[in-house]
């Protein structure tokens, strides 16, 4: 997966978890929870979806790495490098 695809992958997961949110204008460098309504249960859903779709394990101590889309790209880049993008939302 390229960096752009990782952003797509995360946005697709969020679209499933928070279907009422408009994700078109998400900023890369601002915390996701400051831009859309995401609580701790939603965040656990993101971690679960990464596990289910890509077999990626995110240990609890690393959760903060996923706070922004930039952080997701940086942290997940190596873990998703050899994975195929899987889109599940309406996209």
């Amino acid at each position, binding site marked *: 997966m390229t960096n752009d695809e990782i952003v797509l992958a995360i946005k697709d997961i969020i679209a499933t*978890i*928070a*279907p*009422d949110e408009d994700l078109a204008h998400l900023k890369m460098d601002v915390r996701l929870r400051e831009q859309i*309504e995401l609580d701790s*249960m939603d965040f*656990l*859903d993101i971690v*679960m979806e990464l*596990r*289910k779709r890509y077999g990626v*394990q995110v240990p609890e101590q690393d959760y903060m790495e996923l706070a922004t889309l930039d952080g997701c790209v940086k942290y997940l880049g190596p873990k998703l490098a050899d994975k195929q993008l899987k889109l599940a939302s309406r996209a």
Partner: protein
Amino acid sequence: MVSLPRVVITGVGLASPNGASLAEFRANLLAGRSGVRRYSIRHVGETLAGVAEFDALRYQSRKEVRRGTRAGSIAIWCAHEALVDAGLAQGRYDSARDTRYAPERIGVFPGITEHGNVETENQIHEVAQYGFDLAFWSHHHNPRTVANNPAGEATLNLGITGPAYCLGGACAAGNLGLIHGVQLLQLGLIDLALGGGVSESIHTFGIFASFKSQGALASHTDPTKASRPFDKSRNGIVVSEGGCLFALERLDDARARGAKIYGEVLGYGVNSDAADFVLPQAKGQAACMRLALSHAGLAPRDIDLINTHATSTPQGDEVEAGAIREVFADCPTTFVNNTKSFIGHAMGAAGALELAGNLPSLDDRVVHPTINVDDLDPACAIQNLVLGEPARVERVDTILNMSFGMLGINSAVVVGRPR
């Protein structure tokens, strides 16, 4: 004797297999329209069920629907609709915050037959796809399966901060939610109760499989004919989903705000057979009917309409018919009907839905029929059992609503015409 405040029903919110409002539900009960259809669920395959159709997104966001349970969505729908019907809300999201009653003085009491089986089955199905690795077990499992889930979801959605929990009473539960609301109103602990019952049971394969193993699951080539209480060829239960919550207020409060009053809860009874896990007992049922009559200060002759619990099982219907014949032996103006013949068995919602379907009789004096009785089982013969077509009768001042459940729980509610 302590004199308790009188409590009345001022709103009805419901989701039934043949109607998502009281008006639609009642119209279908008078027109003889069944809500039972073909239905498929994993492991069981093709079967029959009553499916409640309503627009969950009218009152919930998509995220709420996703996060919550079906029973939660049903409770939320019914709570909103009851408030709107009572003239206490405008039918928009967060509407309870606009009612005349403070949020902490509103209680939510759905009866449930069971809760949590749906989510547990879903999770086991899910982890089975991953070799039973529990890393894939959802963090949503516990909040979705706790026994207060449907009530709690309604409070989150509506901003209600008063007491809210479910009453587990097997298939007698629909009456329990209403009874509990009445009690807290009479104690002065709340000012408005949303009481009744909900059920998401058609989404658990286990309930179908268990009834099948018990020889109590209905089958019929025509789904609309499958639920046939009191008919000779009845062969079991049609499982249904749905819900009904009543807005309940003290009579004085209801009058003070000029509320429409459907009826007054005159009395109730709840007891236990202490006899068998699944088999109903005429003795306990008759005792429950007498308990409710006594609580209401009425004699059997004073009851104008009995809505039976009968679920279309060979044994259950016969037992109940026997109990009614015993208690109402000399009651020539007491009419009897059954609502499950239209909608199947809505489990925890059954008692509440069935009462709702008959409440309009207090106003129009029309008794909805029992359908699908092509050949009345003599063992189920009851005087004035209304079959096939609605009956217009002289008087419907009182309704006795019966609901029974496994482990021998019996419940009865008496509702009277507003006076």
